[in-house]
C-alpha cells in the first residue's frame, strides 16, 4: 500500500498549480488561449521548484514522439482538406443515400468514421461537419441530426487507430504499449461503438427524419473523386500502408507520421504549390502537449498521480478486466471534469507509476483510451470548459438549444462506451 506515503510536503502546491492551470484553460480570461495557460502552469511548476529546469527540458524532449506525431497529423489533415478529399467523400455519401434521409445519416456516419479513424477525431469534427452541413442543406433537410452525427462519430470512431485521437498516442507512448496490440482490440471496439452510435441516432431521430428528402439535387451536382489529384490519392493509400507496416514492426509513430506528411506535402507541391503550406499545423497543440508533460511531471513528483492510481486501481490491480472497466469509467469522468487531453496525461502517468503487470497495463491503456475518447461527449459540450463557454455564448444572445444535444449525449455516451468496452473485454483480456 502506497497510499499513505505517496504525498510529499510539495503535494498541496503541485495540486494548486495544476488546478489553477486547468481553471485558466477552462475560463480563458484575458483572451488567454489554453496553450499559453498550460505554458504558464508549466513555468509555475519550474519556478516553484517542483520540476527542475533540466527535468522540464527532458519532459519536453521525452515527448518528442508525440510532438512529432502532432506536427505530422495536423499537417496531413491540412493537405487532405486542401485536396478536396472531404467534399468528395461527402459527395459519395450524398450519391449513396439516393435521397433517403436515413441512408444519408448512415452514410454520413460512415464517412465521419473513416475520416476520424485515418485523420483524427478533430479533423472529422472541424473540417467534415461544415461540409456535411452544406450537403444536408441542399437536400432541404434539417441539419441538426447530421451535425450531431458528425460530432459524435468523430469521437466514437476515434478509438480505432493510434492516429485517430491525440489521446491514443499520449496513452500508448507513456505506457509503452505497442500500436499493433492496441489496434487488434480497439479497431473492432471502434466498429462496435460506431454501430451503437448509429442505432442510437436512428432511435432518437425516428420521428424527425422524413421518408424522403424534400429536395433532390441532381446526382452530378455533387463533388466527385475526379477533383482530387490522382497522385495525392495514391499517396494517401501509401500513407495508410506505411502506418500498417510501422505499427506491425513497432516503428515509433511520430517519425512515421512526419514522413507521411512530408510525402503528402511534396506530392501536393508537384501538382500545385500551396499558398501557405504550414497553415493548419497545430502549433498551439504542441505547446499545450509539451506544457502538459511538465505539469504532470510536477504532479507525479509530488506523489499526486500515485495517490490517484491508488484510489482508482487500489482494489483491482491484479485483474486486467477490472482494471480496464475501472480506468475507462474513471477516464470518462475525468474527461468531463477537465478536458480529455489533461485527463489522459494524468491517467497515463498514474497508471505508468502504479507498477502494473504487463497484462494489466495493456488493459489500463485500452480502458483509458476508451474513457478519454468517448467520455467527453457525455455533456455533449465536451467538458466543463465548453459548458461554461456555452453559457457565455448564450449571454451574448446566441440561440443555442442546449437540450437537443445534451439529450443525445446522455444516451449516446454510455451506450458507445459499453459497446466498446464489451468488445475490448472479449478481445483484450487474456483468459
Amino acid at each position, binding site marked *: 500500500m502506497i497510499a499513505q506515503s505517496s504525498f510529499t510536503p510539495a503535494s498541496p502546491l503541485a495540486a494548486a498549480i495544476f488546478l489553477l492551470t486547468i481553471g485558466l484553460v477552462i475560463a480563458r480570461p484575458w483572451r488567454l488561449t489554453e*496553450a499559453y495557460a498550460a505554458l504558464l502552469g508549466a513555468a509555475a511548476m519550474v519556478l516553484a521548484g517542483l520540476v527542475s529546469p533540466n527535468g522540464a527540458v527532458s519532459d519536453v524532449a521525452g515527448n518528442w514522439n508525440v510532438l512529432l506525431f502532432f506536427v505530422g497529423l495536423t499537417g496531413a489533415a491540412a493537405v487532405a482538406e486542401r485536396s478536396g478529399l472531404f467534399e468528395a467523400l461527402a459527395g459519395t455519401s450524398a450519391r449513396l443515400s439516393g435521397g433517403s434521409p436515413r441512408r444519408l445519416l448512415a452514410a454520413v456516419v460512415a464517412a465521419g468514421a473513416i475520416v476520424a479513424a485515418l485523420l483524427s477525431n478533430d*479533423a472529422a469534427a472541424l473540417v467534415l461537419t461544415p461540409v456535411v452541413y452544406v450537403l444536408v442543406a441542399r437536400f432541404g433537410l434539417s441539419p*441538426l441530426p447530421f451535425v450531431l452525427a458528425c460530432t459524435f462519430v468523430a469521437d466514437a470512431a476515434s478509438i480505432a487507430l493510434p492516429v485517430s485521437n491525440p489521446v491514443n498516442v499520449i496513452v500508448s507512448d507513456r505506457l509503452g504499449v505497442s500500436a499493433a496490440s492496441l489496434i487488434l482490440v480497439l479497431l473492432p471496439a471502434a466498429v462496435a461503438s460506431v454501430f451503437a452510435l448509429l442505432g442510437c441516432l436512428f432511435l432518437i431521430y425516428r420521428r424527425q427524419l422524413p421518408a424522403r428528402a424534400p429536395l433532390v439535387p441532381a446526382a452530378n451536382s455533387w463533388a466527385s473523386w475526379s477533383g482530387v489529384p490522382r497522385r495525392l490519392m495514391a499517396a494517401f493509400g501509401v500513407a495508410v500502408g506505411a502506418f500498417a507496416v510501422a505499427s506491425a514492426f513497432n516503428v515509433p509513430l511520430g517519425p512515421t507520421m512526419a514522413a507521411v506528411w512530408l510525402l503528402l506535402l511534396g506530392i501536393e507541391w508537384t501538382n500545385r504549390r500551396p499558398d501557405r503550406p504550414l497553415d493548419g499545423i497545430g502549433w498551439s497543440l504542441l505547446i499545450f502537449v509539451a506544457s502538459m508533460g511538465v505539469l504532470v511531471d510536477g504532479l507525479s513528483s509530488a506523489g499526486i498521480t500515485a495517490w490517484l492510481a491508488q484510489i482508482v486501481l487500489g482494489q483491482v490491480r491484479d485483474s486486467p478486466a477490472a482494471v480496464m472497466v475501472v480506468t475507462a469509467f474513471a477516464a470518462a469522468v475525468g474527461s468531463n471534469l477537465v478536458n480529455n487531453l489533461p485527463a489522459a496525461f494524468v491517467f497515463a502517468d498514474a497508471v505508468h507509476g502504479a507498477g502494473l503487470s504487463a497484462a494489466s497495463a495493456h488493459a489500463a491503456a485500452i480502458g483509458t483510451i476508451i474513457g478519454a475518447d468517448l467520455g467527453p461527449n457525455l455533456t455533449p459540450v465536451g467538458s466543463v470548459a465548453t459548458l461554461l463557454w456555452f453559457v457565455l455564448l448564450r449571454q451574448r444572445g446566441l440561440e443555442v438549444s442546449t437540450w437537443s444535444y445534451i439529450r443525445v449525449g446522455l444516451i449516446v455516451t454510455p451506450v458507445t462506451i459499453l459497446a466498446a468496452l464489451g468488445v475490448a473485454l472479449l478481445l483484450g483480456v487474456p483468459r
Partner: protein
Amino acid sequence: MSVPRRLLVALAGAEDSALPEQVARVVGPGGPAVEVTLLHVEETGPRELATYHQAVRRGYWPLPRKDAIEHRLANADDEAAAALLTVWHERFAAAMPGIEIAHLVARGRPEQEIVTAAGRLHADAIILCARPRTGPTEPGPRSVGHVARFVIDHSPTPVLLIRVSS
C-alpha cells in the same frame, strides 16, 4: 368578399406534397381573394453547433476560419430555403389556381418566428402540419410536434392544423 384572406403557411420543407390540396379543401379552391405567404424558417441552432461548438470543444486543433465557415453555411441555408419555397410555390399554384403567393424566409427558432411573422403580416390564419418532418401521422398522443404545439399555444390568430392522410 372584398378583403383577401391572408394565410401564412409555415413550411419545414418535408411536408407531404398533398398539403396544398388539403388546404384547398378547407379554405376553398383559391382565386384572387386568397393571399398565401409561404414561410420557411432557417434554424440557427444547428449552424451554431457546427461552428462555435466544434471550435470551442476542439480548441487545441488548428481552427479553420470561423467566419468563412459561417458564411458558407448561411449561403447553403439561403439556397435551400429559396429552392424549397419554389417547389411549394408550384404545388400551391397548381392546387389553388389564381391565388397570390408570396415568399418569406426567417432565421431563428421556427416556432417563435412563425408566431412573430403571423403578427407582423396581420395574417388571418396560420396553416401548418402537425408533424411536418415525418409526414402523415394518425391522430393520437404525440401526433403534434413541438413546433406546432408552440404555435397553437402562442398564436395571435386562428391556427389550421393540417394532417395529411395517406
